[in-house]
């Protein structure tokens, strides 16, 4: 998938990857890959800085632990993050319905 298509959606994707529970950075990358059948393969240099940005914004919370002798930082959705994800999902549904209507002649509002 072209990276420019993901612009503006990265935060929602990361929040969604953390919805089911705490994950570390690589697990977030893997979760996005698996949930999209490998279509979303975001670079490391995008994922980790974005996680830090979301943490600074209070949408996720990070904590350190030691796993297998290595320091690991895991992230979990905060309440603000859950609300933000819910809002992004609603925005996306509206957006997708509008664009589908324009591109494919689908009825709007979507009845699907």
């Amino acid at each position, binding site marked *: 998938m072209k990276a420019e298509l993901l612009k503006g959606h990265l935060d929602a994707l990361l929040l969604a990857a953390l919805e089911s529970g705490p994950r570390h*950075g*690589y697990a977030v990358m893997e979760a996005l890959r698996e949930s999209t059948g490998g279509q979303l393969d975001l670079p*490391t240099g995008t994922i*980790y800085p974005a996680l830090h940005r979301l943490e600074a914004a209070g949408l996720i919370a990070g904590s350190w632990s030691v796993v297998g002798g*290595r320091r690991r930082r895991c992230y979990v959705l905060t309440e603000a993050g859950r609300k933000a994800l819910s809002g992004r999902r609603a925005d996306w549904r509206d957006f997708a319905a509008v664009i589908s209507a324009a591109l494919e002649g689908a009825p709007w509002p979507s009845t699907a």
Partner: protein
Amino acid sequence: MAEHRLITAYRDDLLAQLPAHLADEVSDGLADAQEKYIGQGLNPDQAASAAIAEFGNARMVVDGFRRACPAWRAARALIVTGPVVGGWWAAALIADRAWDWPIPMAVRLLVGVMLAGSVLLLVASARARRYQQVRRAGLAGCLGLAVLDACVITTAVLLGPNLRWLLVVAVCVSAVRLTFVVGGLRRLVSQPGV
């Protein structure tokens, strides 16, 4: 399992350019990726190489953090808008014959040195490769520019003999920039790890 030499070299490369906590975090992910590939049947050497190929070289990872750093973004924004703000101030000060204002030469020189220093620090932040340099230079450059903006606003309001529209606009532009810079500084200080 002992860390593979390729993973160690990658971590050292990151440590040379990123704060330790960021290097640790990425290195942990890299080691996790290596374990995944070993689980898929690759030997440790192949698995380490595959993990590094998946992560991309350390330069790309560092660039990602650099571009996300508030100091880098603020420095670039100030460098881009600086000539417009500076040009406007120059026009306003010339129109107001600012050289006649009762400001001691030492203060004028100090302002000039601070301006040059702040600009150099912002350029250094925007061009630096190491994350810590990006952050420190950006922080210092933003701070210098905030102090300068506050000084020129105060000076223009107190000493400007008649606030012509050019000077009023310059004061407003600097006030907007000051608000932006102070907001950026607050983010930088409140996010010591980013």
